[in-house]
């Protein structure tokens, strides 16, 4: 039996379809990612799976329990770390875990030990008696992960676990998630709009855009599924009108696109293409700035499937305002 089974799950808010007929399954013990920009429907999807929002259509089974028919069965089997910080700032770290332990009827004689161990596991052991209101964002997030585990759930849902955290805190949270999964075999479903997070943590990634599931596979296979292996990115100055066509005609170039003044050239051989591009630029009197080569990322996968870049969506509708500063 799969840990999570979703079939035709749909959520409508009036005429707006936030989640459109999504289906997937997550086997037990997997770290599964939902990757997509803000507004893609990830949070709505996770809320339906965790019984916070009723589906409009379709079904979802979590740990064998139907979210509509047996929501209590679902709630007893899962731990949820929502996107917003939901730990009580007026309580201490220990008290936050105690309250949850009591809600889940963790036996009294086990609570103290369990809480101590969980706080140690998330590196908050020395802050057990401190008020959560004094914690940094990263500390609160780690505490909430501990809180989500207090009742030994079978499945852990994390909604954008590192949004708003600094790089060090992000790395700490990633380490913790990986350690959790290694040690306990927990099934983990996380949503994120960070491609590096999905790439690093998830065994499989589902790409969600405008409420639809556009791709689902391991990060490696997703990257392999697009024709290019590498991407050359450069900013050009003084480029003639037919510059994109000239670039596209170079050998091994698969596609050329431009976003916010940066030209993206997908290719099967980055080094060769780079040489060819610089040569062409020199001959045509075009100056090249900030030239980089990188392997295809999930961002490129997103671009391939949706026609837009993930990072574009994050900073969507950025206008060219350079003229205001002349």
């Amino acid at each position, binding site marked *: 039996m799969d840990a999570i089974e979703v079939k035709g799950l749909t959520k409508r808010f009036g005429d707006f379809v936030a989640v459109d007929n999504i289906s997937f399954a997550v086997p037990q013990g997997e770290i599964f990612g939902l990757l997509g920009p803000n507004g893609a429907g990830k949070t709505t999807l996770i*809320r339906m799976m965790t019984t916070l*929002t009723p589906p409009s259509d379709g079904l979802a089974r979590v740990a064998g329990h139907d979210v509509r028919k047996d929501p209590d069965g679902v709630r007893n089997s*899962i731990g*949820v770390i929502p996107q*917003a910080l*939901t*730990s009580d700032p007026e309580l201490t770290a220990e008290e936050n875990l105690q309250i949850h332990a009591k*809600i*889940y009827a963790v036996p009294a004689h086990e609570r103290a030990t369990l809480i101590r161990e969980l706080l140690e596991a998330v590196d908050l052991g020395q802050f057990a008696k401190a008020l959560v209101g004094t914690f940094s964002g990263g500390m609160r997030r780690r505490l909430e992960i501990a*809180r989500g585990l207090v009742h030994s759930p079978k499945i852990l849902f994390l909604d954008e676990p590192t949004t708003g955290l600094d790089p060090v805190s992000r790395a700490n949270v990633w380490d913790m998630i990986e350690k959790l999964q290694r040690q306990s075999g927990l099934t983990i479903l996380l949503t994120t709009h960070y491609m590096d997070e999905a790439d690093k943590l998830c065994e499989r990634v589902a790409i969600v855009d405008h409420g639809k599931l556009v791709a689902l596979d391991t990060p490696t296979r997703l990257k392999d599924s697009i024709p290019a292996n590498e991407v050359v990115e450069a900013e050009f100055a003084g480029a003639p009108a037919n510059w994109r066509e000239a670039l596209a005609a170079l050998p091994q170039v698969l596609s050329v696109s431009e976003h916010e003044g940066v030209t993206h050239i997908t290719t099967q051989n980055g080094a060769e293409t780079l040489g060819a591009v610089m040569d062409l630029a020199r001959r045509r009197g075009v100056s090249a700035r900030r030239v980089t080569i990188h392997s295809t990322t999930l961002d490129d996968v997103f671009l391939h499937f949706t026609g837009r870049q993930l990072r574009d969506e994050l900073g969507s509708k950025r206008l060219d305002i350079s003229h205001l500063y002349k």
Partner: protein
Amino acid sequence: MKPYRIFALIERDMRKFFRNPALMMASMVFPLVQLVVLGYAFGGKITKVQVALVDKDTGTEALPVRKGLNAIVQAPQTFRLSEYTDLPEAVTDLRAGFLKAVIYIPPDFSQRVLRNENPRIAFIEDNTDTFTASGIFERMQQLQNSLNGPVLPPASNLAGLFSPHRLPASIDIQTVEVYPYIDYIKYLLAGSISLSIFVTAMIGGGITFIDDKARGLHEGYLSTPLSKVDLVLGLIGSGAIKGLMAGLVITVIGGLIAGIPQLWEPLRLFYLVLVLAVTSLSMLSFMFLLMVRVSDPLVPRAIFGVLNTLLFFPSGAVYPTAGFPVWLRAMSIVDPFTYVVEALKNLLLKDTGFAGIRLDLAILTGFSAALIAGCILLFKRQI
């Protein structure tokens, strides 16, 4: 200081204000309601209070007295008369708060009238409520003046000028106060206690609940196995405990300041705790029901003061409900404060036993149960 910056900030806040109908309603409409309520909550004529008549006289000279009392019942309707056959029973009901006064016509009244031997009627009043007592007494004095009308020669052509109710001898109305003198601070204590519980209810059941919702803290609990009943009873229960604590503190400190005698009498203390507990529960339930579907943290803050006025003044805490117009009396019937104030006054000022609070307790308990059921029904367990 730059005026254009100041105006930019003013514009920002005014735009937000006009986009918030609840806030506009609270700041513009509710104060008007408050004006009307406050305007009619003081100084009205006392009407339709319950008064007992114990008539032990078997003669005919008491008939004019009864006629006069019935005339008052018809108009100006200051009181309603209940006939009692037993004076101790009437006084017991007076002490329990079911009556505001007892009018006693002794068995020898007619004989004293005929023998002109200083006939007297006893007016036994609940002096814990001086407004009502003086309102009733004013009518009794008018009755006395009417019965003791001027002496006129019995000429036939003046027959029409005779007061039809004039008695042969002047009667005296002797006032008996059931309780020692009650100063106004004692009278106000019940209202102050209920107010303290209300404030705690507003903060605990209204403001804190909405603020936690707005901060997203509720989401952390909604994904746990907590049911709607668990959530509602847990939130109301914690607020009720806080309200009880606040009420107890004010009762003790306020009681000492106001000089309530024998405040520490164990049975009375027990009844006080019971009333405070039920009060707390009813106020929390009321507040929670108002806020159960509210998400804007400004709403409870905006309506706090007005709600306070709308509940406190119609309750009889400051002026008796018997002096209210009909519509304000109707408000007081559905106002939980009314029953709280009545029960607390009965315990603190009259030292009644359970009989003086059982009806109020029953009403408040039923009220709480109905409100809690409403809260459970309306509480949204999903986002």
